[in-house]
């Protein structure tokens, strides 16, 4: 029962998810609309609670076991608790029951978002450019004909997408665009077909109960 019920649910709701794309009958469409607008929302709310609970449990465990960099888990739990309390009781822009301002110092969710999350997120991504530059210098070598071709295409696209490319030659941006439009699309389309067929096969295997690793315990 413990295994069969989840398999049955996946089969029923998997099939219910496919049918509305094939049968336009109002009864089918209304059922689909009900499932999406009601059931899916409830499931999403449960998933959110499950996700947050799981995140906290992982970090609590890490602190208890004194795992690698366990001190950072306190930072996560602390910021999670603080922002949750401020968000739940202080409101997004400080309109809740909890005061979110001491003098000129505001600490509502809106202020935290724009003054902590935005700069931190931007800084983290900005650091990537330095690593990419260093990695490109060390690893991007014309070791073979294919690597040379890749390197040439990269130079053309890197210059062609900038105003400098147009200054060098008005044909360079068009050539860069051609590389993106033709050889790139050809490769991407092949990948897309492969991924789509793979997804279709995996989805069918899960719906039909052939693939059961998501239940836990491998593919048994």
């Amino acid at each position, binding site marked *: 029962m413990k295994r069969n019920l989840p398999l049955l649910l996946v089969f029923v709701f998997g099939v219910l998810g496919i049918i509305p794309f094939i049968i336009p009958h109002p009864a089918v469409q209304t059922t689909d609309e009900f499932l999406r607008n009601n059931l899916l929302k409830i499931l999403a709310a449960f998933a959110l609670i499950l996700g947050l609970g799981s995140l906290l449990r992982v970090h609590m465990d890490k602190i208890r076991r004194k795992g690698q960099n366990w001190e950072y888990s306190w930072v996560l739990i602390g910021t999670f608790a603080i922002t949750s309390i401020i968000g739940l009781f202080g409101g997004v822009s400080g309109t809740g029951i909890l005061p979110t301002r001491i003098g000129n110092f505001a600490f509502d969710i809106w202020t935290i978002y724009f003054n902590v*999350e935005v700069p931190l997120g931007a800084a983290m991504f900005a650091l990537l450019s330095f690593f990419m530059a260093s990695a*490109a*210098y060390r690893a991007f070598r014309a070791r073979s004909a294919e690597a040379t071709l890749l*390197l040439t295409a990269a130079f053309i696209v890197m210059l062609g997408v*900038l105003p400098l490319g147009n200054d060098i030659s008005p044909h360079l941006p068009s050539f860069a*665009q051609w590389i993106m439009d033709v050889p790139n699309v050809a490769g991407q389309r092949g990948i897309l077909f492969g991924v789509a067929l793979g997804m279709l096969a995996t989805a069918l295997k899960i719906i039909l109960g052939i693939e059961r690793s998501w239940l836990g315990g491998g593919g048994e």
Partner: protein
Amino acid sequence: MTMIDVLTKIDRRIIYLILFSVVTLPIIFPSARSVRVMPPVEKLYRAIDEIPEEKALIIDFDYDPQTLPEIEPMAFAILRHAFTKRIKVLAISLYVQPLGLAQNALVNVAEEFNTRASTQEDSIIYGRDYVFLGWQPPPLIPILGMGESITNVYKTDYHGNRTDTLPLMKEIKNYGDVGLLVSLSSGDPPKWWVEYAQNRFGLKVGAGITAVSASEFYPYLQTGQFSGLMVGMKGAAEYEEQVETELGIKVRRKASESLPSLTYAHVVIIIFIVIGNTGYFISRSKQRRSQ
């Protein structure tokens, strides 16, 4: 230290310092120059420009702080275009993180117009000219649900108002009343709009994406599933150029101002790759000679 060492073993701190300098200097001394508008951006501009008066433009804000510098200028340029042409705008987010950024873009651009406006008619008014519907998880719900009824999916807007009481939402019921959806995203959402909303309801879709993910979106443009495409900072700068030349809107062009930083960074990376390869070829020919 041999010549080969000099060429192949440059200290990474030197690379970081040079890159930092060439990126920051143009930001400290900003200057915007005109750029050549490429066909994908031109197509997107035309697709928005040709939205019929009775239809709306949906902007899906799906970028986060990490990709803000690339995609936010796109949002500003599109909003300026839409508000100038009096195109009705519905804004949504498929994720929670971009909500603040979306609200920021909407409020800033509406304010830009309202400071110049002299009458109620000239002003950009919330509820009449644009509505921010907010966030509704999971993404599949709004993507499919809005095809049937937008107010059914978003019962209240971002500010907590009942959507069925807003004047704009009385005119815009579902995708049948939407001329185009533009997904401004740093991930997969533009594909989801094509896979679900376009295939099932025939919704026209355009996209604004980060440069790093550009290659995987070009097939959608070639097939015509995307009505247009903006890629990275350059795409945003092209749209800014188009808005300035076609609509005469002269404001600060953030993406265009950032292009010099991007240009110098690309040139520095190319130079370092050339230096690295020069060292590699010299060492390889030396090895061959010694053998």
